[in-house]
């Protein structure tokens, strides 16, 4: 194809953007063409989301231009971009918790009857069609509050797809989804693309990029380093472009020797959510909790950690029963939970990086009754380096970090406590390949060092690559326990979809 003939629906030309001292984007050009899915790759903090926000009118570029159908435009705000036919799925869900799912989908552009009245019937009907296409089984009249991250992501997807957009931008839409939903999403997106929609897709899962996209632009530290046709490169090439070097094994699993039982969950039940869940995790072991979205895995680990009160059953750590519904007691017993929703549950966005890391261990950074700033700083510095955190100053609010780097801060916050049982819920959601390998090596090392690790993950390769044992949940019940040897994609999936009884 001749370069000159490429006609972009939406394009960036030589765009730069800084936030204070941080140069998030430098001289980036990008063309989104009708009928083409364009991937954006890069490590955490490379500037992908910033680019998305420029395309969607949230930020204005410091220099450079946005071109719509070849002519320069200025987006004064998200509304302008929307009018230009740009639909966006942001990295973090942006739902209205008090409003119903239907209202969320149509907010700001509800169909109206002649008298300006909102046409609820039309909204319900369109939502029904959308959900059927995506295979979503949510009640559209339900309020968005309380939806799991995955369900929120699905609603976001439905919202964007309902728009008949000319350009569809998706910032890590699949981070919280498992295989089924991803497949369905891709089906819909492919159909849209074939109808002439331009697609911009961001994901840290390389296989998804290779499955969906035709072209990929790679960013490194805000600078574009390459634009390739997918057909021309391999995943390893892409990793090299992103990271600037070759990567070691993706799942650096070391084999540990399981020791005594560190965590025992006994017939744990929370009515309406999960039932009769029992299992053990030994020291030196990584146990994965697998299942489809909504199977209740997050709810189980929340109850273990004492966030929610269980209706029946109990939890033992190191042979001692935990007081129910008390995270403080759980932490004292040596538990740590890296929650799935880092923005809401993991971090205090307004607080600085070092204070966030110290938050779970306020007792450990004290000198007498007072907090020692030095100890706090040292603790954060130590873990920031170990996790290769990308930051300007440790005193910056954590909210300005990129998504993946925020996730690292949450990990640092809990690892700094040196727990005996580490529970991680989607530990690598939104983390780039390089760091992912890092996190995996870390988890593996910790396990070998005698920590018991319970990992909830929707990423099958991660589950299979990391776990010594896989527990599979289906509709709130534990349906299978598979040792590493017999855990395969097929066996886990069939258990997760309820096709085999345990």
């Amino acid at each position: 194809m001749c370069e000159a003939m490429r006609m972009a629906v939406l394009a960036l030309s030589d765009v730069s953007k800084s936030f204070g001292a941080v140069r998030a984007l430098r001289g980036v050009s990008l063309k989104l063409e009708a009928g083409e899915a364009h991937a954006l790759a890069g490590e955490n903090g490379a500037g992908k989301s910033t680019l998305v926000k420029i395309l969607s009118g949230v930020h204005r570029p410091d220099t450079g231009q946005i071109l719509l159908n070849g002519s320069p435009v200025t987006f004064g705000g998200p509304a302008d971009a929307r009018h230009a036919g740009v639909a966006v799925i942001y990295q973090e869900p942006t739902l209205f918790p008090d409003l119903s799912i239907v209202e969320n989908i149509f907010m700001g552009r509800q169909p109206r009857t002649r008298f300006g009245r909102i046409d609820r019937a039309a909204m319900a009907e369109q939502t029904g069609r959308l959900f059927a296409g995506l295979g979503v089984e949510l009640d559209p009249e339900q309020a968005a509050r309380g939806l799991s991250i995955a369900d929120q992501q699905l609603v976001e997807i439905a919202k964007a797809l309902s728009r008949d957009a000319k350009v569809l931008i998706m910032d890590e839409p699949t981070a919280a989804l498992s295989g089924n939903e991803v497949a369905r999403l891709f089906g819909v997106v492919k159909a849209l693309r074939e109808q002439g929609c331009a697609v911009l897709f961001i994901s840290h899962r390389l296989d998804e990029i290779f499955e969906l996209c035709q072209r990929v632009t790679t960013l490194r530290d805000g600078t574009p380093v390459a634009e390739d046709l997918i057909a021309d490169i391999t995943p390893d090439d892409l990793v090299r472009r992103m990271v600037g070097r070759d990567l070691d094994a993706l799942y650096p699993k070391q084999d540990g020797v399981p020791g005594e039982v560190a965590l025992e969950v006994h017939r744990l039940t929370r009515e309406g959510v999960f039932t009769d869940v029992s299992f053990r995790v030994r020291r030196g072991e990584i146990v994965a909790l697998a299942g489809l979205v909504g199977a209740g895995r997050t709810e189980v680990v929340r109850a273990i950690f004492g966030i929610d009160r269980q209706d029946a059953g109990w939890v033992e750590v190191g042979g001692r029963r935990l007081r129910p519904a008390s995270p403080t007691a759980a932490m004292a017993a040596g538990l740590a939970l890296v929650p799935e929703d880092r923005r809401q549950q993991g971090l205090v966005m307004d607080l600085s990086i070092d204070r966030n890391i110290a938050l779970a261990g306020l007792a450990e950074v004290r000198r007498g009754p007072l907090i020692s700033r030095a100890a706090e700083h040292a603790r954060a510095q130590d873990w920031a380096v170990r996790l290769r955190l990308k930051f300007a100053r440790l005193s910056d609010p954590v909210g300005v970090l990129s998504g993946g780097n925020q996730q690292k801060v949450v990990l640092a916050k809990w690892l700094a406590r040196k727990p005996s049982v580490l529970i991680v819920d989607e530990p690598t959601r939104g983390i780039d390949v390089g760091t992912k390998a890092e996190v995996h090596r870390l988890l593996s090392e910790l396990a070998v060092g005698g920590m018991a690790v319970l990992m909830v993950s929707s990423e099958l390769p991660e589950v299979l690559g990391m776990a010594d044992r896989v527990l599979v949940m289906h509709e709130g019940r534990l349906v299978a326990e598979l040792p590493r040897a017999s855990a395969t994609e097929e066996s886990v999936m069939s258990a997760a979809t309820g096709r085999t009884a345990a």
Partner: protein
Amino acid sequence: MLVRRWESLILVLLVGVCVWAALGVDGFANTSNVSFLLLDTTEIALMALTMTFVIVAAEIDLSVASTLGLSCAVLGWLWNAGLGIELIMPICLLVGALCGAINGLLVTRLGLPSLAVTIGTFALYRGLAYVILGDQAVADLPAAYTSLATRPLVPLGLVAVLGVGAAVLLHATGLGRAVFAIGANQEAAFFSGIRVKRIKFWLFVAGGAMAALASLVFTFRYASARADNGVGLELAVVAAVLLGGVSIFGGRGSLPGVLMAVVLLGVVRNALILADVANEVLNFVTGLLLVASVLAPNLGALWRRRFTSQQEVS
């Protein structure tokens, strides 16, 4: 960073107003006037200390002035009943703590919004004060105490000691950190093992006890225990805390800023009254000061946005 800038802003304003008043207002710059004006801020300063904690934790307590009233009423009633004042004082503090505990229980155990709860207890506590003391005014209080309270050193010393203690507690201890975290993101704080409910509960209790302490100062200072003591003081307290740079949405603020704001409001009032400025202007200026103090930094941001032409979405 914002907090730092804020404190300096208030400080500059405070110094500016003081200089203006000292030079331009007759009768401002002498010890007796300054001690009067500081004395006048005692109750507000005391209640602002705990109110700062409460608002930083993203709650609010509108019932403090009513708690003060109730505590005054209890004091008057017990005094009339012949109890010794040294015994009555701790009882009053207990009553205040109890009022705070009721607020705290309703907020933490039932998860009710504190604004709603304390609008309710605002009426309830004041009402109870009327039930207890009715239309009586108790004035025959022991001179030893009433003169103590009008001697500037004692109440101001109390404010200073408690102020320093509160500032250390809020800014340099784990509890303070926890309070900030709760205010900024309660869920994340809970996930970090912070006992959100327990801490909030005790903040309300402390707020109630502090209101009772303020009631003692109030009663002795005016030598008068009545059920309507301190009516309307809650708005003055909240205004001072907000002017001091505490975010009404929680998670942000500093105690030195609040104390400076309390003094600033006191100085402005005193100087304007001395300058024979009409009461309506006084109200107007108070309102303006409140809005302007928040507006000024925001306008700066607005201005900058105009020029760098970027729209932030936090």
